[in-house]
């Protein structure tokens, strides 16, 4: 038992907690956090990834900790699903922790000790969320995760905008937590045993099962950032320091996906296809909403946050399809959908982590977050530009990187639609695949915008010579962190069948069914075969080798037969001598066709300069309609209700004594 993956994972979580607290003791010594705490945290992450990987191949293990309340100890369990998420947490956080060791180099030591404390508690709490095997421990870990990340978000709490972003995050996180708590209550059905085993064994009425599903879906969805509960994401992610944004977007959102899969597929069981339709509808809306709003942003981190919303939508599409197939009694196709969703979960963690780290390096180097001020960064930050390009290609779902694999698997799931009995659902799934295709192409457009404006071209605003004079490329540790995640994009993209086998184990452990024999025997390390070789196959390694080979061949042929003379000149100015860098596209200009095509989705406020303006400026504000039909009315209603309730609060002792008296009388009437 001593060397089992469960003990190992527990040990890693404890190491994180120890590192967190240890950072406080040599106070005033920032070097400790930089040189020891974060690198140690990264190593622990690697170990956790190894334990998680090991656990995928072993039967589930469980353990009871002598902690918690009397008669209510903490239960831990490590099954393939948890193992997979621990692998995700460990491997991605290793890169982010290594990056943090470099990123926080200029923080004052007191603040750095606090960041290190919250950061490592955050990591440990995510590990406990995944390991928890009873509702009590799950909620404790879940809340610890919410609180520690809240404090990380408000690291710069002196700015009011950041405080309000943090408040919004905390609010929505708690709405979600209440829903999850209620969901556990429904599952529990008043039997007094909150272990997941007991919840799993409970036989629910279909109506109650649906209630539990809705509570779990919206509760976890609030954390995942699906619409309409996404509003905190684009506020909180830019407010947090970049490695924290990477951690939140890359990993924390995934714990919500974990929770969804755990509760819906495992605890509730008996998945119904109607639930799948709900998930699909929300997923499709989230996907399109996220990418369309990402295209409108000019703050790099907000843009990335909206892309997280989009990617959660893609994951939900995979999950929803899986539920539909399982509900109709086709577990093999259902497992394929689940695999696609979980694969995208891992992929998104890797490339979104990478992109947020890249955004952090830009912010560090130039002090800029607004794309409209950037330009030409590839010349001053070539390493960051290289890694960011890999992330951008991966998120745009381009072969042979990892984003493509999971979208390909999702497409393949949708193409299983003809086996469904229900005609409407059958024709619905390919349409959702088209949604996915649209989102993928829009993502590509968005990242052409990001990359083209930030890294290519010329610096835009003469007032912000970017990069700032003293700045250069990312530091050594920062580059290492980005390189780690970029390598992840390649590994996940090039060797998908190994991960397919891992995820198949997860699928078997959840549904009792796996992919078809043909698929498993057809999938060597070279080939990815989701169903049968004659139906669909994909070999990213061959793909990459061929594309590199023909590109090099073209290069060599040209070299061989071409004289190679070359001249440098100014760009062609079309005969107009006055060209300034401000004539390049800005981020807002790049999104203009989208505003034209998808106009009704946005709430726009445009101010055009008049003919007499001395300093003409075009101002455009694009807002989320959800604020106006959902959030603000709810906020107003809450204020109204609380103002009425506040009438009770008179501030005079005699009134309060009167309340006590009335309460007593009422109690006596009832209790009698």
């Amino acid at each position, binding site marked *: 038992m001593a060397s089992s993956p469960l003990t190992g994972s527990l040990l890693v979580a404890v190491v994180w907690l120890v590192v967190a607290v240890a950072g406080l003791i040599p106070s005033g010594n920032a070097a400790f956090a930089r040189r020891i705490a974060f690198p140690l945290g990264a190593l622990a992450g690697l170990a956790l990834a190894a334990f998680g990987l090991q656990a995928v191949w072993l039967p589930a293990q469980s353990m009871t900790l002598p902690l918690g309340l009397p008669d209510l100890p903490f239960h831990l369990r490590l099954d393939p699903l948890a193992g997979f998420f621990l692998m995700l947490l460990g491997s991605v956080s290793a890169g982010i922790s290594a990056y943090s060791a470099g990123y926080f180099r200029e923080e004052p030591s007191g603040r750095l000790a606090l960041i290190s404390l919250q950061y490592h508690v955050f990591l440990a709490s995510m590990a406990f969320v995944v390991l928890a095997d009873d509702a009590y421990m799950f909620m404790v870990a879940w809340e610890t995760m919410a609180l520690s990340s809240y404090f990380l978000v408000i690291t710069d709490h002196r700015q009011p905008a950041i405080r309000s972003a943090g408040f919004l995050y905390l609010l929505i996180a708690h709405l979600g937590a209440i829903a999850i708590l209620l969901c556990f209550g429904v599952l529990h059905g008043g039997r007094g045993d909150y272990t997941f085993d007991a919840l799993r064994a409970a036989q629910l009425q279909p109506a109650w099962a649906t209630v539990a599903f809705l509570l779990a879906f919206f509760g976890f969805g609030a954390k995942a950032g699906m619409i309409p509960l996404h509003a905190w994401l684009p506020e909180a992610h830019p407010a947090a320091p970049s490695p924290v944004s990477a951690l939140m977007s890359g990993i924390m959102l995934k714990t919500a996906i974990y929770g969804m899969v755990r509760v819906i597929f495992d605890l509730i069981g008996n998945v119904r296809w109607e639930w799948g339709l709900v998930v699909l509808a929300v997923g499709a809306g989230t996907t399109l909403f996220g990418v369309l709003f990402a295209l409108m942003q000019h703050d790099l981190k907000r843009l990335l946050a909206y892309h997280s919303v989009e990617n959660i939508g893609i994951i939900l599409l995979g999950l929803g399809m899986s539920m539909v197939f399982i509900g109709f009694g086709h577990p093999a196709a259902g497992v394929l959908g689940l695999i696609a969703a979980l694969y995208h979960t891992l992929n998104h963690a890797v490339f979104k982590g990478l992109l947020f780290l890249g955004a952090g390096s830009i912010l560090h180097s130039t002090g800029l977050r607004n794309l409209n001020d950037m330009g030409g960064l590839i010349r001053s930050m070539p390493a960051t530009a290289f890694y960011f390009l890999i992330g951008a290609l991966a998120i745009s779902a381009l072969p042979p990187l990892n984003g493509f694999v999971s979208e*390909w698997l999702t*497409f*393949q799931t949708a193409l299983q639609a003809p086996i469904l009995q229900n005609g409407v659902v059958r024709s619905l799934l390919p349409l959702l695949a088209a949604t996915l*295709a*649209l989102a993928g192409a829009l993502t590509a457009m968005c990242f052409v915008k990001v990359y083209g404006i930030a890294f290519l071209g010329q610096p835009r605003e003469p007032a912000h010579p970017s990069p700032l004079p003293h700045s250069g490329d990312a530091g050594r540790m920062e580059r290492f962190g980005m390189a780690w995640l970029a390598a992840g994009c390649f590994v996940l993209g090039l060797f998908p069948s190994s991960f397919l086998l891992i995820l198949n184990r997860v699928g078997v452990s959840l549904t009792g069914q796996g992919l078809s024999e043909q698929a498993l025997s057809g999938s060597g390390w070279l080939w990815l075969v989701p169903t049968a070789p004659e139906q669909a196959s994909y070999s990213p390694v061959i793909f990459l080798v061929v594309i590199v080979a023909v590109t090099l061949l073209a290069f060599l042929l040209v070299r061989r037969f071409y004289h190679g003379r070359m001249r440098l000149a100014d760009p062609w100015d079309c005969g107009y001598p006055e060209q300034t860098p401000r*004539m*390049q596209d800005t981020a807002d200009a790049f999104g203009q066709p989208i505003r034209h095509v998808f106009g009704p989705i946005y709430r726009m406020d445009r101010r055009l300069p008049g003919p007499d303006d001395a300093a003409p400026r075009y101002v455009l504000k694009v807002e989320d309609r959800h604020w106006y039909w959902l959030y603000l009315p709810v906020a107003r209603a809450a204020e109204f209700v609380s103002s009425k309730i506040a009438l009770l609060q008179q501030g005079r002792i005699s009134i309060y004594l009167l309340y006590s008296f009335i309460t007593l009388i009422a109690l006596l009437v009832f209790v009698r």
Partner: protein
Amino acid sequence: MNSAPGIAFQILQSVFVVLAAPLLTGWVNQCRAWLQNRSAPSILLPYFTLAKLFHKDAVFARDASPIFRWTPYILFGCMWLAAGIVPVLATGLPFAPAADIIALVGVFALARMFSALAAMDIGTSFGGLGARREMLIGFLAEPAMLMTLFTAAFISGSTQLTTIVDTLGHREFALYPSLAFAAVAFLMVLLAENARIPIDNPTTHLELTMVHEALILEYSARHLALIEWAVAIKLFAYMTIGIALFAPWGIAEAGDWSALPYAFAALAGKLALAGAGLALIETLLAKLRLFLAPEFLSTAFLLAVLGMLTHFLVQG
């Protein structure tokens, strides 16, 4: 499948497509000149143009990054790869299972992304304009293209082009109404993706309307030649995808040398017809305003969806 004749067929087809692609472009230009009562240029003109460009000195903008330098090669490589996937002369090529129709669309998307990035590299306003418009057309065309391909995939139960062509080519002659819808949608996507009228005009350099030409404005000499060549291969690849999906008769199987001359003749005939048809379309239609492109392409998308629904209805 991975036998020596298979590999020989693979190499033969890839080289054939790369070498023959400019000929198709020349043929389309010639037909168009005839239709427009101009005296037609030689069908070999694209080859001469490529040779001329390969002899010139390259001019580079001073601030060009590696992305700008490498994009022509990447574009060429992507299109060459596509030429290897599509069953042009034969089905069952050894490389075909490595990438299915979804990956094929991915290859085109990869090429599009790099050409848009290269256009923004220099920092001129035309580059940004071209990149923006190209991506606009791209995101509208890609879902329509996938839906078209999915319709064929549903009919044959596979996303492998080889299997699709085998199923569609060796069936008894039956009219698939779903394929008719899909064919129209595919034609519209082909026009948009290859920068043809009515979406873009390959012969214009007018800043208000150009899309593709704005992307490659900064390129010269060998780089421009590679891009032009890649564009020719792309047109060839799209046409052969269309042929493979909607008129696959006469294609050979890999390794079957005796069927090869027939496959060549069938392909040449079909491409000559398709090229003439393209010239006719380009002569009859006028270029659309840029913001009518979304309507054009969403029509294509709806047609593709209708095709798919028809398939489900008929299968019922």
